[in-house]
């Protein structure tokens, strides 16, 4: 049945305007009147969107969930309510009911399949079925390459995915298939779903800079059409309301259009597509012509500038591409050819897009026929479109050039809540107006299609770059990741997410100053950013910046007190102040808030290590590993506990496990070296430490441990060399001088030994290492008692905060004292 109830429309309207109270109320009345699947779905959606997933869950549990949409919503609310097994049973069946294969799921859920697979992937990864999880994620990406969370899930599971395959940037080669499909689309409703990759597949090594427009958008539409097993009207009835801002007529039209569900994943903000937002974006962007997400409107004036900004990565979404069959692959750049192509190929077009054709044509206001269906699209794109199209017509021979630089692409892209085909056409829609050479007979829908393709190409190429970079980071190839991230266009690079990834990359490299800089930038640009802030708090913890850390904790708490990041930051803050009990309290809170936040467990484990409650610490680290097997910090933590318990063999195993996940960590290599040495495998230890030094020449600890081992092996000269180098790198570290003193003592250079010991003591004002004093006493016990007395006296008198000058002077005094004694 067509969706024509004003009540439903009103409910969707309320939902679209975040008026959940009214939406829920009306939906409840509607459900009472008409108990149909639609009304049930409506009510459940209201509950869910109002932030009450448990109510939705109970409702659906009560009333049942026959249709795929209901099943999907039920599964989602199960997940939110914490019943993973039920969610899984609903979506995929379990051992008790017959488990469904992926194809069955795809057929059953049709348009929703990509999201279903996404959720299944998450469910399986929570329950440690990695292979199944990987399969599901991959499937969901095949169906909808814009689902970044699936890609993220794959990376987190340690799967090697090739972003180029996953985010295929479309090229012309598939236009053939596309056109055929478009024809098919309108005739056949029940063909089996064709995954996007199939259609996009002759993507022969398309460099990202050339998203030659394939009719990708049409492709997707067709896919959606084809894959929806639902009777069209029902689909549209469900979809239209989203977009319908109360216009009944549009809904009718929507039902006619086999409303494919546009890639909903892209819809983040369900605002009615208002054009006004875009112009400012474009204006601001200045140089960069976005590759997706701009309404034609706004950019009409900037068309020329856009044209002029020919950046390397241009793709001319040649209509030629659209136009399939022929030639055109070379021609695209030349406006003339394009034009001719267009002219030629325009003919067949209108026929294939008969229905949409109508509406699309009507999109152009300048042809002022206004059947009811147009009203909607015109409302949506109205004023903007018309002017832009007009502009287009006027501008001749301007190459249509766009750079694949997205502009607030994400935001505007998300105005895609169209259900009707025509809207979905413009889906990725708000595409840049190209200053294309328009021909009077150029059909507006072709233009729109091209724009959509451009937009899609743009977002896919962006996702590809991000994918490469994120993948590198997941493998802990941090340098590569940093390079890839910084090679993004500046406006994308300066977003919170990207900066936090870069920050994290520096963090993993132990370059805490760099990491801090990046994180600071985030807070300047996006003070509301929470994701990734727990890494920032740990960075500050390492840098021991108490003030910044506590201010960060407060800020995060203001934004969202119940987020695990805020709790972790506060915990870190207290940990830095050495109030471990309180820190433990906060980390526990973080765990309570989000059971699957692995880092909270790790931090809690570290706190327990500090309070020497090693059993609790072990339990925490193991929980972290359970949540996220690739969380190498947790493996490190387990190894650390064994190290403290002197179970060196077990410690080594766990450190190596951590190293396997994160091979570039010099700190891990250091620890392995130490552990090997403790197991008397000193040569192996030394070679490990050499590897560590080679991996990260800036890490002083590798050298220090190497020197320690050399000293233990009586290779005093080499030890001395290392220590001298170290001294130059880190002049103020007391333990270096302590070790130097011991080496010199062994070598018999008593005076040098004494000098170094005194320096060591000077540099350790708080007496953290009492052993220094003890060892000085021990070492000189047999020898000159006077010297000892003088030493301890002068030490007591001379313990100053370190300044190497002063310690030098003290050393000289002491040297004289010793010499004078010995002369006696």
């Amino acid at each position, binding site marked *: 049945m067509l969706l024509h109830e004003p009540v439903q429309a009103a409910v969707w309207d309320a939902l679209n305007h975040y008026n959940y109270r009214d939406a829920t109320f009306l939906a409840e009345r509607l459900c009472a009147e008409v108990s149909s699947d639609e009304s049930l779905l409506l009510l459940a959606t209201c509950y869910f969107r109002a932030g009450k997933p448990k109510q939705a869950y109970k409702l659906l549990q009560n009333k049942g969930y026959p249709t795929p949409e209901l099943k999907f919503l039920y599964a989602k609310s199960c997940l939110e309510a914490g019943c993973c097994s039920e969610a899984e049973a609903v979506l995929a069946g379990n051992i008790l009911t017959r488990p469904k294969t992926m194809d069955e799921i795809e057929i059953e859920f049709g348009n929703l399949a990509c999201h279903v697979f996404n959720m299944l992937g998450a469910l399986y990864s929570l329950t440690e079925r990695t292979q199944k999880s990987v399969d599901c994620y991959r499937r969901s990406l095949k169906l909808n390459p814009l689902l970044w969370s699936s890609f993220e899930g794959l990376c987190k599971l340690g799967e090697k995915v090739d972003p180029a395959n996953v985010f295929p940037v479309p090229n012309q080669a598939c236009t053939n298939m596309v056109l055929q499909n478009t024809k098919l689309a309108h005739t056949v409703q029940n063909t089996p779903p064709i995954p996007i990759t199939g259609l996009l597949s002759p993507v022969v090594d398309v460099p990202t800079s050339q998203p030659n427009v394939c009719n990708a958008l049409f492709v997707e539409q067709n896919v959606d059409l084809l894959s929806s097993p639902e009777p069209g009207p029902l689909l549209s009835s469900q979809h239209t309301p989203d977009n319908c801002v109360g216009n009944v007529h549009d809904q009718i039209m929507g039902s006619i259009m086999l409303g494919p569900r546009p890639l909903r994943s892209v819809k983040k903000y369900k605002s009615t597509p208002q054009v006004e937002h875009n112009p400012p974006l474009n204006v601001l962007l200045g140089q960069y012509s976005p590759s997706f997400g701009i309404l034609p409107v706004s950019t009409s004036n900037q068309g020329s500038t856009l044209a002029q900004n020919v950046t390397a990565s241009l793709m001319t979404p040649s209509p030629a591409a659209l136009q399939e069959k022929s030639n055109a692959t070379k021609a695209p750049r030349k406006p003339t050819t394009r034009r001719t192509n267009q002219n030629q190929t325009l003919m067949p077009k209108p026929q294939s897009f008969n229905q949409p054709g109508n509406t699309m044509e009507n999109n152009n206001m300048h042809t002022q026929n206004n059947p009811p269906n147009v009203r909607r699209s015109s409302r949506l794109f109205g004023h903007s479109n018309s002017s832009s199209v007009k502009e287009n017509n006027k501008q001749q021979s301007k190459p249509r050039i766009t750079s694949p630089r997205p502009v607030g692409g994400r935001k505007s892209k998300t105005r895609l809540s169209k259900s009707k085909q025509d809207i979905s056409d413009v889906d990725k829609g708000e595409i840049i107006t190209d200053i294309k050479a328009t021909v009077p007979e150029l059909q507006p829908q072709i233009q729109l299609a091209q724009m959509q393709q451009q937009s899609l190409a743009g977002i896919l190429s962006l996702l590809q770059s991000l994918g490469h970079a994120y993948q590198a980071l997941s493998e802990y190839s941090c340098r590569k990741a940093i390079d890839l991230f910084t090679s993004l266009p500046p406006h994308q690079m300066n977003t919170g997410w990207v900066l936090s990834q870069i920050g994290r990359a520096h963090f993993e490299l*132990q370059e805490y100053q760099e990491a801090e800089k990046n994180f600071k930038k985030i807070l300047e640009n996006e003070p509301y950013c929470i994701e990734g802030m727990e890494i920032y708090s740990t960075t500050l913890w390492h840098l021991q910046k108490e003030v910044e850390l506590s201010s960060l904790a407060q800020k995060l708490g203001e934004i969202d007190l119940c987020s695990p990041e805020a709790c972790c930051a506060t915990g870190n803050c207290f940990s830095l102040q*050495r109030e471990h009990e309180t820190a433990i309290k906060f980390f526990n809170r973080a765990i309570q808030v989000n059971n699957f936040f692995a880092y909270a467990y790790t931090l809690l484990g570290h706190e327990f290590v500090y309070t020497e409650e090693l059993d609790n610490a072990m339990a925490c680290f193991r929980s972290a590993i359970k949540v996220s097997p690739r969380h190498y910090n947790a493996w490190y933590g387990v190894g650390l506990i064994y190290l403290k318990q002197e179970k060196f063999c077990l410690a080594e195993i766990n450190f190596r496990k951590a190293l396997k996940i994160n091979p570039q960590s010099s700190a891990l290599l250091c620890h392995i070296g130490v552990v090997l040495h403790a197991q008397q495998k000193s040569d192996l230890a030394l070679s490990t430490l050499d590897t560590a030094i080679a991996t990260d020449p800036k890490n002083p600890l590798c050298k*220090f441990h190497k020197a320690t081992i050399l000293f233990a092996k009586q290779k005093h000269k080499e030890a001395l060399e290392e220590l001298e180098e170290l001294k130059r790198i*880190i002049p103020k570290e*007391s*333990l270096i001088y302590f070790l130097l003193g011991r080496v010199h003592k062994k070598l018999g250079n008593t005076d040098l030994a004494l000098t170094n010991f005194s320096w060591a003591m000077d*540099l*350790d004002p708080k007496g*953290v290492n009492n052993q220094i004093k003890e060892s000085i006493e021990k070492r000189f016990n047999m020898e000159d008692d006077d010297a000892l007395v003088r030493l301890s006296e002068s030490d007591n008198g001379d313990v100053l905060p370190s300044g190497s000058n002063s310690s030098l002077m003290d050393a000289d005094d002491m040297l004289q004292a010793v010499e004078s004694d010995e002369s006696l």
Partner: protein
Amino acid sequence: MATKFTASQELDVFKDEKEGLYREVGNQAVWSLSSCKAGFGVEQLRDDSYDSYWQSDGPQPHLVNIQFRRKTTIQDVCIYTDYKADESYTPNRVSIRAGSHFNDLFEVEQIELNEPIGWISVPLKDGNGRPIRTFMIQIAILSNHQNGRDTHVRRIKIRSPVNKALKFTSLECLMRSNIR
């Protein structure tokens, strides 16, 4: 032979904790009292407030028993008392005993307090001058000021030395010494 102690309010028992030298291990132990008045028991003794206190309610000596799950190294015992507020309830002679269980205790320290106001820290050393390692500690209040019968103790802390591995002193080394 008792050591004389005069408590000073300036003694900052928390400084060493902040610097990471000592750690309070009372949380890892089971606390029990020989007797207490209702509402003035272990809870009040172990909370972080100087206002709440333990009040005993039986014959002398009053005992505070602290039992650890494993043998723990004890650096010192810190007691907070307040003569001005408690007068005759303030402990006068305190004996600190250690051992494996109730029947195995031996006296480690006996201290005499003289109108104490504030914290008193009693280091517990074994024969070699090192901190003792024990399963159980018993703090016995042998007598009070002005021969009072019952006693008030406001706070007790047990501190243990932090693991004595060599620690780096400079930030650069500390930063890289562990993965967090």
